[in-house]
């Protein structure tokens, strides 16, 4: 079975631009979460979606948005990119909490 897949793996953007990151969960997983990991820190929660509804949002500005599609894949959008948005963006899917979260390999975003 395929794990959680994320695309692209690497991305370089200029300040002020917009970016879209994509995530496909493990088959059968209806929950998708997004995390931001800045170099040298632990991952920080951005969003969780379940059955296409937002279940939770972390302490991130409105420039960050996400959505989940009927096939349970998800997109994370970031507008008006700042240098500080440079990070590894991780997607995780879950069947339920008894099974924990499975993470993808992430998208490395560099803002210049």
């Amino acid at each position, binding site marked *: 079975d395929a794990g*959680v897949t*994320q695309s692209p793996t690497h991305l370089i953007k200029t300040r002020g631009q917009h970016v879209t990151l994509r995530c496909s969960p493990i088959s059968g997983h209806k*929950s998708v*979460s997004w*995390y931001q990991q800045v170099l040298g*820190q*632990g*991952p*920080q*929660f951005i969003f*969780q979606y*379940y059955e296409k509804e937002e*279940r*939770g949002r*972390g302490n991130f500005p409105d420039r960050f948005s996400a959505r989940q599609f009927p096939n349970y894949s998800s997109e994370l959008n970031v507008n008006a990119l700042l240098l500080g948005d440079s990070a590894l963006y*991780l997607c*995780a899917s879950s069947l339920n*909490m*008894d099974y*924990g*979260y*499975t*993470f*993808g*390999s*992430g998208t*490395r975003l560099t803002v210049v």
Partner: protein
Amino acid sequence: AQSVAQPEDQVNVAEGNPLTVKCTYSVSGNPYLFWYVQYPNRGLQFLLKYITGDNLVKGSYGFEAEFNKSQTSFHLKKPSALVSDSALYFCATLPNDYKLSFGAGTTVTVRA
């Protein structure tokens, strides 16, 4: 706030020696606790979790963790470390049913 703390930024051990990575938690009620490992430029890999039951939890790659309620700790252990265990280790808790809260991480270096 419900959280975990990893008091050591780095742990260095010789191959074949026991490895311990420390984690303490501050969680009300019954905690959900996790350990993840991250190799360079990769996503997070699940090692083990504690939800309820036996205080000694066995996980992947020969790792185990002991839940200690009196000391509010959930230390990760491996009896005999390998050079390939060198990585970044994260302890995490689940303060609600959708958001993982991670520690700052501990870098483990196993020397040959």
